[in-house]
């Protein structure tokens, strides 16, 4: 039972962690699609 609960906690930790990492990993549509001639932030 402990192993099962630990795994479920791990799922949450991995999901939150991957979201934090991936949102800064440079793979957003904005990062991938824009070039130097395009400004979306300003």
């Amino acid at each position, binding site marked *: *039972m*402990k*192993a*099962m609960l*630990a*795994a*479920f906690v*791990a*799922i949450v930790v*991995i*999901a*939150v962690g*991957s*979201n934090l990492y*991936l949102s800064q990993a440079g*793979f957003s*549509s904005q990062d*991938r*699609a*824009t*070039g130097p*001639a*395009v400004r979306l932030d300003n």
Partner: protein
Amino acid sequence: MLRALLALMLTVTFVSTAHAQEGASPDREATGGAQTLEDIMARQRGEEVDNSFRSDATGDPDSAAGIASQLGTLGGASDPELWRALRFGTANITASNNSPTATTLIQDGGMGWLQFREGPLASYGGGLLIVTAALLAVFLMVRGRITIDGEKTGRTITRFKAVERFGHWLLAGSFILLGVTGLVSLFGRTVFIPVFGHEAFSYLAVGSKWIHNNVSWAFMLALAMIFVMWVIHNLPDRTDINWLLKGGGIFTNGHPPAKKFNAGQKLIFWSVIVLGTSISVSGLALLFPFEFNMFAPTFAKLNSFGISEALGLGTLRETLAPHEEMQYAQLWHAIVSFVLMAIILAHIYIGSVGMEGAYDAMGSGEVEEQWAREHHSIWAEEELAKDRKAPESATPAE
């Protein structure tokens, strides 16, 4: 009499004309080689139209109309040529947007994808899950719960260590989350929006997407974990043939001998590994859109090995628009997921309500000795022999 004869003659005339039209190759002389009304009508009827007469007719100045003729205003390159190049994705386009989709102005895979996704994918996929659940319910009613035949000993054997159970539940928990959120995404428009309304479903959809994208990593990690931990126990051997020939003893009272995993469990293991890997790869293609293309190279291989021909699919297209790569990835991801979900439903059934003592293996990790002797006789003997060899003063391993 005369009227009847006239009707017969008219019928025969129409039939023969229709026959002649079907057999002959399209005559495009009247349009100067451009598509005819019949081409357009055939496409609207949903028939296959060979577009090569258009797609190949680009970039050849010799085929353009002369500069002095009515359509020759652009000299060597005609307007129709430009439009055809745009239509078939061969035009030389530059865009400040770096996405591969920015330079593909027209792609025609979208409607086919949408119709397949809303039609056969949703109906056959959903049907598969419902039929599987119904069959399991019927099986439970007919066969009943598989109980432990012999007398329980009260002693237990360690079947799965904590790390094995952790890996299993990491995979199971993430798979259920991914399955449910995947179904929410697929059936949103047809099932959830009519029930909950647009606004409530938007929260559900955004949440589902977040869970689906981020929990996928736990699934992939767990898939690697169980592969490393259990592959050695899941290699096929001679006991599997006997086990399969006896149907695993499901319909009889006897239990064919089995090692740590019986042939049925091995089939589940390899289904999870193979289908799970395929789902992971197509999922990664969707998670990082347009970063890597799976389908055009796969289609090229299927063509070159003659597999597509053998399957009656003809020659598959080896050049796909970026959008089409994503469309195929989505469909493949969903199809394989439906198959794995159906298999896992059966796995959940036999590991919980379907068999007495089975859940303990993944719950506490300790199984009743009699259960082990019945369902995994060879493994149970090995484990008991190990215990007998160990000195009595030794503390049993966790």
